[in-house]
């Protein structure tokens, strides 16, 4: 396909991919790029590659183009709504969007059409962003990592290697951003569902502080851990989206541009997940170590700290909480239509339905202990850097690598504790699969982790590489 959009000088431009939101915004502001061109570029990209990667479950080309023409007219009339005006985005199919189906990747919801936007979809539209459609997801955001090829939608494929998994449960979100079928994606993260797709696909995935963003109009998976969050190609884009999502009343710092220095920042480093869990792949360890050197060169002071509770115990507590709350949400469907569920959801709900209240409460008590202990640690630093997943994107359908990718992570401690965390690409394997790390901040201090991630991104070249499809 041909590249129709003009490129901004400092932004990484790869043929066939749309520009980043920040770059596009600069071009739009300068009158060199129209939202219509931008939306058309994404639609062409969808047409060209989505038959292979299956990031979208529903594309609303007609309304997107109409919105783009409207944005073009507004901007031409001097009524710009800001940097997201005219920028294409897509939402995981557990967000409602007025007039579009919401299926949550499930046969149980076939034929359901939303009559209003989820709060966050509305927030994006208010900021001028243009909804392209809905992105693939595991059924109700549920999976143990295994791929059972039993959902009503095709399995999303990793754009860096289509024989590999794209990460779940926001399966389409990471793939879409990496492949350039959208500029911005909205996902949701219970125990890693924004951060795992970001890890697998080499993009930025942000899980904000629990409670910062409004979940109204989204399909619940687990009340006490669900957090919506953006996936984007760059840190700056993720920050722009976070500001739009958090709303004018929230105190979210402006998007970082390119901080040259991190001097004065004290960053904790967690290396060891503790007993009971396989540690990170060698390639991830190498990239992590090199990344720390970059942070030091940028002036940050690093301190090795330890995880107060083993990651394996956090994973166990999160599993009990997740399956119990999910079963409470979907109990009637489990009783009445289990045959319409995929294996992963049915398996989780059956476990949840048989969990005793005392085990759920014990898990919540462990969670409080983990959250308090982590908070005491994190509060004494500006941010903490650690691993995300311990493996690169696994081969689709190959066990045990599939379930290991989702289970062996440093992600659940922060799902339990509610601290904001961001996953970011920090290199590639020899065979070209993206590597990543995780940056965690104090509660409601997304600004710090965005600043660190932006500085790291600016100091490295990883954003110049895009998957070839």
């Amino acid at each position, binding site marked *: 396909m041909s590249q129709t959009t003009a490129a901004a000088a400092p932004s990484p431009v790869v043929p066939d991919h749309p520009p980043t939101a920040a770059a596009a915004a600069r071009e739009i502001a300068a009158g060199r790029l129209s939202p219509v061109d931008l939306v058309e570029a994404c639609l062409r990209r969808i047409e060209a590659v989505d038959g292979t990667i299956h990031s979208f479950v529903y594309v609303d080309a007609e309304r997107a183009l109409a919105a783009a023409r409207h944005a073009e007219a507004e901007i031409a009339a001097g009524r710009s709504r800001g940097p997201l005006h005219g920028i294409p985005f897509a939402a995981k199919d557990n967000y409602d969007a007025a007039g579009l189906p919401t299926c949550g990747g499930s046969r149980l919801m076939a034929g359901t059409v939303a009559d209003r936007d989820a709060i966050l979809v509305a927030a994006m539209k208010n900021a001028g962003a243009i909804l392209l459609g809905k992105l693939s997801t595991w059924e109700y955001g549920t999976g143990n990592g295994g791929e059972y090829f039993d959902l009503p939608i095709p399995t999303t494929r990793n754009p860096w290697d289509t024989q590999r998994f794209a990460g779940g449960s926001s399966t389409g979100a990471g793939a879409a951003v990496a492949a350039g079928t959208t500029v911005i994606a909205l996902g949701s993260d219970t125990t890693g569902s924004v951060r795992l797709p970001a890890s697998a696909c080499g993009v930025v995935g942000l899980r904000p502080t629990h409670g910062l963003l409004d979940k109204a109009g989204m399909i619940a998976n687990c009340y006490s851990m669900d957090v919506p969050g953006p996936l984007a190609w760059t840190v700056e884009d993720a920050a722009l989206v976070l500001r739009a999502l958090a709303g004018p009343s929230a105190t979210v710092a402006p998007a970082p541009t390119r901080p040259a220095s991190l001097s004065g920042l004290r960053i904790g480093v967690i290396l060891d997940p503790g007993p009971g869990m396989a540690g990170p792949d060698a390639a991830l360890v190498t990239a992590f170590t090199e990344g720390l050197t970059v942070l030091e060169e940028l002036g940050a002071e690093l301190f090795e700290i330890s995880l107060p509770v083993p990651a394996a115990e956090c994973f166990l507590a999160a599993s009990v909480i997740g399956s119990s709350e999910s079963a409470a949400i979907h109990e009637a469907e489990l009783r009445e239509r289990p045959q319409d569920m995929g294996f992963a959801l049915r398996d989780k709900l059956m476990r949840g339905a048989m969990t*005793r209240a005392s085990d759920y409460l014990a898990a919540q008590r462990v969670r409080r202990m983990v959250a308090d202990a982590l908070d005491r640690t994190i509060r004494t630093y500006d941010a903490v850097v650690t691993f995300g997943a311990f493996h690169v994107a696994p081969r689709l359908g190959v066990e045990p690598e599939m379930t290991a990718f989702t289970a062996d992570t440093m992600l659940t401690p922060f799902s339990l504790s509610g601290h904001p965390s961001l996953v970011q690409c920090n290199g590639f394997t020899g065979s070209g699969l993206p590597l990543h790390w995780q940056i965690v901040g104090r509660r409601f201090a997304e600004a710090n982790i965005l600043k660190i991630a932006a500085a790291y991104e600016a100091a490295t070249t990883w954003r110049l590489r895009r998957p070839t499809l």
Partner: protein
Amino acid sequence: MKAMPKLAPAAPELVHLTITEASRLIAARRLSPVELVEAFLARIAATEDRLHAYITVLGDEALAAARQAEADIAAGRYKGPLHGIPFAVKDNYHVVGVRTTGASRLMLDYVADETATAIERLTAAGAILLGKLNTWEYGTGTGEIHDDLPFPLARNPWNTDRFTGGSSTGAGVAVAAGSAMFALGSDTGGSVRLPAAAAGVQGMKATYGVVSRAGILPNCWSLDVAGPLTWTCEDNALVLRTIAGHDPRDPGSADRLVPDYLQGIGAGIAGMVIGVIRDLGPDAPSMQPDTRANLEAMEAVLEDLGARLVEISLPAPLSGYRQIVGAINWGESYSIHERDFLERADLMGKALRDKMTAGFTMRAVDYIAAQRRRRELAQSTDAVLSACDAVLAPCTFLTAPTFDDQETLTKFTFGAATSIFNATGHPALSICNGFDADGMPTSAQIVGRWFDEATVYRVARAYEAATPWRAERPVL
């Protein structure tokens, strides 16, 4: 129990002072804290064989604290209206170095290594701890009396053949009988308000989160509220003002400023809109005629005082709230006592063992469903309550029954309208509103908006001042 010091005969005129009256005398140095504490210890000595309000009496410690208070006050170091005022706490509050039993055979030898924040705040204000009060085992019971706990049953001072209300069984008794000037209890489904109702005293369950539970044995984290029982509403406001306020030691503690509940407490209720809840649904217990008559008379008094009464109805029947409170309590309580239940269930009384059995078999989805329903009901109930300045609701549907009538005992406790406000978190005060034909006190609840204890007290105080009920004390 400690040996009682030898003392002069009881001085009922001292033990029946209100806190406000006693502190005026103490501040004016016309009453010594030592004299006051001695009077209470004498009263305890004279009544305990009939009332069994106390599990532990801290006579020597209380006298030492009284002498210190006397010296401090004499030296001009007067700490304020609670200085030298004797009180007692339900035996689920910890005090460093003192046994906490929770009235359980599981804890008979347990000596606490911490002090409850509420007690620390009271002693810092100069109040003097007399001892630890009787309770149902770990605050648990449906009302049935099994008499299978390690301590004798507390008895109602208005008639010792009658029940005291639970679970803070000793707390209402001690305040009514004058064996403590005020008491602290804890309320999961009514355990402050029911003993207050049975004994004709005023018991406050403040908004969830206002009073720290740190250092108190938990019964059910998400419902437990600690609160004071006092003879008058003004005294109650004084004690709550002292114990309320954020405490990082309690994860459920609300981080907000505590208003001075005494400010404007006497301003009257002219022009206030007071909602009246008369009908609690088809499955609420039938109301004893005298209780009903006193509730209706109370409405008339509030109207005479200038309030506008508006009948309101709750979004669910009483049973809807009670089921939620039951399910949440079973689940959380079992989570707390799981190990004891698995290893030493034989030491538990029947009421606790029954609850553990229910909790043991409960599924997570049912607990979560109860919490979801609770949230919905809290919001829909708040929408109704917050349209009024305050609300008048039934408390118990009958006066304290005799110990031998299990069915009526359950109706008194399990059937009461108290659990509604544990489910929703609203502040609710149980207030004496008269007596039945047998001379047993009747009660009602005054309920407020979230964190608006001040208005609850203002309404209660206006009613109390307009009625003669505070003039009567039980004769022992």
